[in-house]
């Protein structure tokens, strides 16, 4: 019996992964909501200090997979996951990994800005406070200021730090949420359609911000806008019906996709 098994065809690794270390990785991930099979045998490697974009038609499982990366799916009772997801090589679903701690390493920004009904200062101070990251009030104030600066919001709100965060404009609120997320010094920031509720000017501000943040963070962004993916990301993954169809360098995906479905999607044939 020497029936030659077909040679394992490995897709060529994206260029971007060659010059950046791997941050997160998924191997053979399946996710079910009750009977619904939402993610099918998905494997992917996400590089550090770069922006990875997830694109694909609605309902294909982008959000589901994104939420698996910081175990937010744990909060949905019907949701079950198998397979392995790692952060710096460590399986995040290990029994001795606490999701609470994981989420301080892997932050998240949502589609709709969701500042807490507290002051701007308290919104940003929320994470450092619960994780006990700052010993003194001065240190806390410093960290809040830094985070707001990194999020490009400090100049606009420095005179009203103690007014409610819900009083800001939509774009400002979303940057506040980004400031809130980076205040705990995460390594990865997940963003689920962070600009879909914003106008073009606010969107441009956030895109700029994402581009700056990639110097220090590993960023994963879900987007429906192919232009946005093309503008901000270095690596793009195309999802379709719960599977990862294709992933690679953004310029290559958008200029020379290998899969017909990707081709159809980016040329607007469906989705």
């Amino acid at each position, binding site marked *: 019996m020497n029936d030659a098994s077909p040679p394992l065809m490995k897709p060529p690794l994206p260029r971007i992964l060659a010059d950046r270390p791997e941050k997160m990785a998924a191997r053979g991930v399946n996710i079910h909501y009750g009977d619904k099979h939402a993610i099918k045998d998905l494997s992917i490697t996400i590089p550090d200090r770069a922006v990875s974009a997830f694109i694909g038609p609605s309902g294909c499982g982008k959000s589901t997979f994104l939420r698996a990366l910081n175990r937010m799916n744990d909060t949905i009772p019907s949701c079950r996951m198998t397979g392995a997801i790692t*952060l*710096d090589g*460590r399986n*995040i679903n*290990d029994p*001795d*990994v*606490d999701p*609470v*701690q*994981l989420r301080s*390493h892997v932050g998240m920004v949502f589609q709709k800005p969701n500042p807490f009904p507290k002051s701007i200062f308290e919104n940003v101070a929320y994470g450092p406070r*619960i*994780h*006990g990251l700052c010993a003194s009030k001065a240190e806390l104030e410093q960290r809040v200021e830094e985070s707001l600066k990194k999020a490009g919001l400090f100049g606009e709100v420095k005179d009203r730090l103690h007014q409610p965060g819900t009083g800001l404009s939509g774009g400002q609120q979303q940057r506040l949420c980004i400031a809130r997320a980076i205040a705990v010094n995460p*390594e990865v920031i997940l963003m689920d359609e962070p600009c879909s509720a914003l106008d073009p000017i606010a969107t441009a501000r956030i895109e700029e911000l994402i581009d700056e943040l990639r110097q220090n963070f590993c960023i994963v962004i879900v987007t429906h806008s192919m232009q946005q993916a093309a503008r901000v990301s270095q690596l793009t993954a195309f999802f379709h019906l719960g599977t990862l169809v294709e992933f690679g360098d953004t310029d290559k995906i958008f200029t020379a996709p290998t899969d017909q479905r990707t081709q159809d999607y980016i040329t607007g044939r469906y989705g």
Partner: protein
Amino acid sequence: MSSLNAQNPTLRRRRAAEARFRRYGAAALALTSLFLAFLIIDIVGKGWPAFVEHRVELPVTLDSRKLAEKNYDGLIKDAIFARFPEAQSRGQRKAVLALFSHSAEQALAAQLAEAPAAAGQTVKAEVLLSDTADLHLKGLSHLADPAAIDALTARLPVTAHFSWRFFSHGDSREAEEAGIRGALIGSLLTVAVALGLGLIFGVAAAIYLEEFAPKNRLTDIIEVNINNLAAVPSIIFGLLGLAVFLNAFGLPRSSPLVGGLVLSLLVLPTIIIAARAALKAVPPSIKEAALGVGASEHQAVFHHVLPLALPGILTGAILGMARAFGETAPLLMIGMVAFIADVPGSISDAATVLPVQIYLWSDLPELAFRSKTAAAIMVLIAVLFAANALAIYLRNRFERRW
């Protein structure tokens, strides 16, 4: 490099706080459930003896003179003393007589009226034991003379029966004879009046507010008013009943009519709110369709919308009824709190209701009344439970999703 280790002291502290918080929540629910369970067990434990009564079969020899004089009391006493020949002193005789209920003479009279017997014959009379003897036999008290009890059980066949009397008799000064029939009928009449009036006015108001009312100051006032009325303490409604229905209108005191009037006002907000919710749940397309085929506004509402809202309204009515059935305080104020042995025949007779009967009995010193009180509570809760179960059934049965 990330440090995803769980062995961090801050995290351990936070996890402990989390577990503690969760335990507080579980403890609150457990405590509340436990309270309810304990309440029910306590009531049932106190109340079940009232559903059992002890009787003896006493052979009564019909002395001709006493029979002619209709001196049934004397006949019973003779029969009793014939069985206790050793009781000679006044004290001993009293102790023996205290074992038997005073109702024995009426029971004998009734028995003889039904099946006449000639003088000289011996008939078997079913004689109810007194409350003290009954409690002694149930092991609940030792107020009766133990020697007399021993003699009694040795000489006469004592049997335990389910106490139908509890449901077929009105109130009585004698604990062993007291029943809840009067109170139940009183409750029935009162709730019927309350529900009848409450439904008429409540549903009419709901239809007006939901379907016809223009948005103006007047309807606004009505609306705010209904919400506030729902939270007015029930005892205030009693003051209203006293001042207006009794004093100003001169309606009969203690009557189910006045009780029902007061309770109808009390349940009005409940019914209005439930009926409005039911009407609101009927999609506007139904009304529009009816209007579209040429029905008038009135026809559309009364022929098409109202029937569809009926199950919801009914559920609200049952819940209002349950509320009225358990209400006590306002009825105290309009005189439904007197001792009334007769079963009321109409809504203008003096009557009492089950919750008030419970209140009255709970104040009495006799131990037997304590178990009667608990037993009456069991009946009250059983009725409320049935009403709520019916409401839930109706809601599930007719709940429609458009």
